[in-house]
């Protein structure tokens, strides 16, 4: 009987599309925002660099061992002081999605570890960290309470009492919260099932109807009306549709397209969901006219401050400022992936999703700015995001920035801005979706450079696993004038790393596709005299740190260190004109974010040596 059953499993041939299922999972765990790829240092938190003090053998091709020291910063995960960043507050973890302000207190939820953090807006001090014990994606502050949007138990609202530090009320929603706003004297929460609840300060559900909360403005709650898929006003007395945001055939701000609605400077601002094309739409309630503005990929978290509309692009790692009247757009690269924007203590704050931190900005100072990029779109989501001139019209070199696996072109935003500011053309390579293998990346890069008329010479910059793409792309070409490798990952490193962890009973540190079995037979094995710089992180903050040794044991830590060193020495030996250096003071957050100036210095140095602007 059981044999017959064993042989007749009705689902034995049932298969699902892995990528689609994964996207569905990501949508769920990302909540209001699909979680962005985490940086390699978070995946491999103990990346090692060429060590200044470890005993290593560097290929004889490397003439000297240099140390690039970012000032007097202490060892660790320290960030350079960027113009306009008044303060950087480290948070308990990454995954910062949303926050709220209550007087002088900033409340931040880090979704990766379900931590609610209380931060003084005046001092920047983290006053308390609460383990909420629920997956919280949204937070609103009003009526003396903090209202947390939880995905647990099919969706619920948690009322958090800041005085007691306890959740004292739980309101079941029967659907995952997908939007919330304080409007009138009530909390309005909608779910992924388009149920809209009005909740009293006491935590009672006062009313329910269909709709999706998009924001507030001009005395209305703005909701998506599922019956029309149009954004409509909802008044405090429950009247729906006094104002309906129209579609004009060109701009279609329908409910499924709009992420959020914000009032600023006499207009209603609609940020469009989706990655491309992207825009913010200005809606004039008097004329009922729509004016789209291209700002960045996936703009969100729009906030008015200092007479401007501010928003972030997590995809592009940018803070964006829009002049509400003229429509002038300014873009400021950020040292990480941004999450929420908040206004507190008379300042603008940006929470970084990864690495988890909170930046207090001085918008009156000269923030680092980047020009509007030109996007060269290929097929299959492959894109080149270029700044600093038209790379198709002159023969001077183009800097190609190759991201770490799982990152996209946006991870380079700071480096790109600083290099192009010097008059060079820079193209960051990446995908709007997906994470292809290096072989595919290299082929797409070559195809789209040729297809878009972006001819060499090229200076290649690869970060982490980006080294594989760089070597594959460089093979057989005569138009490479220099290479900078930032934390290049040795071949087979993931397998070795996992084997060490396995020894101590920790299974698997990495998904299998990250241990890239790159076909090195088509990689460039000999760079000849092409100038090469290898930049590594400070090992005292990574594999040789006390923390890592305590985790894996000293012997394992040193063997992982040795493996990494051997790999870096191998890369350094690829060219007879190579230099290797340790970026002191850089730890687990990524040199390109914590100390972009070190990378920029080496890129500009190679460009100065080999070219004339």
């Amino acid at each position, binding site marked *: 009987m059981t044999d017959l059953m064993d042989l007749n499993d009705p689902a034995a041939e*049932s298969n699902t599309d892995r990528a689609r299922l994964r996207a569905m999972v990501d949508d*769920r765990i990302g909540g209001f925002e699909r979680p962005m790829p985490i940086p390699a240092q978070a995946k*491999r938190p103990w990346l090692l660099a060429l060590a200044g003090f470890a005993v290593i053998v560097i290929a004889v091709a490397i003439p000297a061992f240099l140390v690039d020291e970012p000032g007097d910063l202490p060892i660790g995960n320290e960030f350079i002081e960027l113009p306009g960043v008044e303060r950087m507050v480290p948070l308990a973890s990454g995954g910062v999605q949303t926050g709220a302000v209550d007087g002088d207190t900033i409340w931040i939820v880090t979704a990766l570890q379900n931590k609610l953090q209380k931060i003084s807006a005046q001092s920047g001090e983290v006053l308390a960290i609460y383990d909420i014990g629920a997956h919280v994606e949204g937070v609103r502050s009003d009526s003396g309470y903090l209202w947390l949007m939880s995905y647990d138990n099919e969706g619920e609202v948690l009322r958090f009492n800041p005085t007691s530090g306890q959740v004292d009320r739980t309101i079941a929603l029967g659907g995952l919260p997908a939007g919330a706003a304080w409007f009138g004297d009530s909390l309005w929460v909608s779910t992924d099932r388009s149920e809209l609840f009005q909740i009293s300060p006491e935590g009672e559900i006062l009313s329910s109807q269909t709709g999706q909360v998009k924001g507030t403005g001009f005395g209305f709650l703005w909701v998506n009306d599922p019956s029309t898929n149009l954004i409509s006003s909802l008044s405090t007395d429950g009247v729906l549709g006094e104002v309906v945001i129209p579609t004009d055939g060109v701009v279609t701000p329908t409910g499924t397209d709009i992420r959020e609605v914000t009032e600023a400077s006499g207009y209603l601002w609609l940020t469009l969901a989706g990655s491309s094309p992207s825009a913010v739409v200005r809606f004039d309630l008097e004329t009922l006219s729509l004016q789209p503005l291209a700002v960045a990929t996936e703009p969100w978290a729009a906030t008015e401050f200092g007479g401007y509309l501010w928003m972030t692009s997590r995809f592009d790692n940018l803070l964006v400022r829009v002049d509400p009247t003229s429509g002038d757009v300014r873009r400021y690269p950020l040292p990480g992936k941004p999450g929420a924007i908040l206004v507190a203590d008379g300042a603008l704050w940006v929470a970084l999703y990864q690495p988890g931190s909170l930046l207090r900005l001085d918008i009156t100072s000269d923030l680092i700015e980047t020009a509007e990029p030109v996007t060269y779109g290929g097929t299959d989501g492959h894109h080149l995001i270029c700044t600093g001139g038209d790379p198709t019209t002159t023969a001077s070199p183009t800097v190609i920035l190759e991201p770490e696996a799982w990152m996209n072109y946006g991870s380079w935003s700071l480096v790109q801005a600083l290099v192009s500011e010097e008059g060079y053309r820079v193209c960051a390579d990446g995908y709007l979706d997906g994470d292809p293998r290096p072989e595919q990346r290299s082929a797409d890069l070559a195809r789209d450079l040729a297809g878009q008329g972006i001819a060499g010479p090229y200076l290649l910059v690869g970060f982490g696993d980006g080294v594989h793409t760089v070597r594959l792309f460089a093979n057989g070409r005569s138009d490479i004038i220099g290479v900078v490798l930032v934390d290049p990952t040795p071949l087979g490193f993931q397998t070795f790393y996992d084997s060490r962890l396995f020894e101590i009973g920790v299974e698997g540190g990495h998904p299998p596709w990250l241990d890239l079995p790159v076909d090195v037979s088509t990689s460039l094995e000999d760079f000849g005299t092409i100038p090469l710089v290898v930049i590594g992180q400070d090992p005292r903050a990574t594999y040789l740190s006390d923390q890592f040794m305590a985790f894996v044991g000293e012997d394992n830590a040193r063997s992982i260190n040795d493996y990494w060193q051997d790999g870096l020495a191998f890369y350094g030996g690829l060219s007879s004109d190579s230099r290797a250096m340790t970026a002191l003071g850089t730890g687990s957050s990524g040199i390109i974010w914590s100390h972009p100036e070190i990378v920029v210095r080496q890129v500009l140095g190679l460009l100065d040596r080999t070219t004339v602007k």
Partner: protein
Amino acid sequence: MATGPVVDNSTDQQDRFDDLFEANYVAIFRYCVRRLGSADAEDAAADVFAVAWRRFHEIPAGEASRAWLFAVAYRVIGNTYRSRRRQRSLSDRLKSDTAVLVSRPWFESAPTQQVRCLYRALSSLGVADQELLRLWSWDGLTRSEIAYVLGINENAVDQRLHRARTRLRTRFDRLSGSSTQQEAEEAST
């Protein structure tokens, strides 16, 4: 729910979650297909992994993680059934055309009369018996894993499994006998 302030450092949760997903998504998806049909299976499987992400710190290490996922799937599917009931109830109340997703019963896809009898026999058993047999035979779980998923001890798994097999055999024999007779009658007419 919330407790006093604690401080915790970040982990490599993302990586380990990705491993967990890769190793188990097919099995969890098929588990959901068997119980819900293909229409709702992906949603349910995605819900399972979303729960896994949110409760990642509760997942046991090693192979025990598989049983943990199945236990979550068991409860997610229970929620889906309850949700379907609510949808039907709401639809009835509103007397509207509200679409209610009701999957085609999986046993209708049986390739042969014998297998159809098997599926019908299985579906005629109590819910607990069905779940035990499916976990053992189709999901390939061990006794200890089944015990974990259902929240019972291993001895109870043995006893209930024995009884469930006996009941399945009885029902199957009854159904196959009647179907054979029915086929014979149909053939003679």
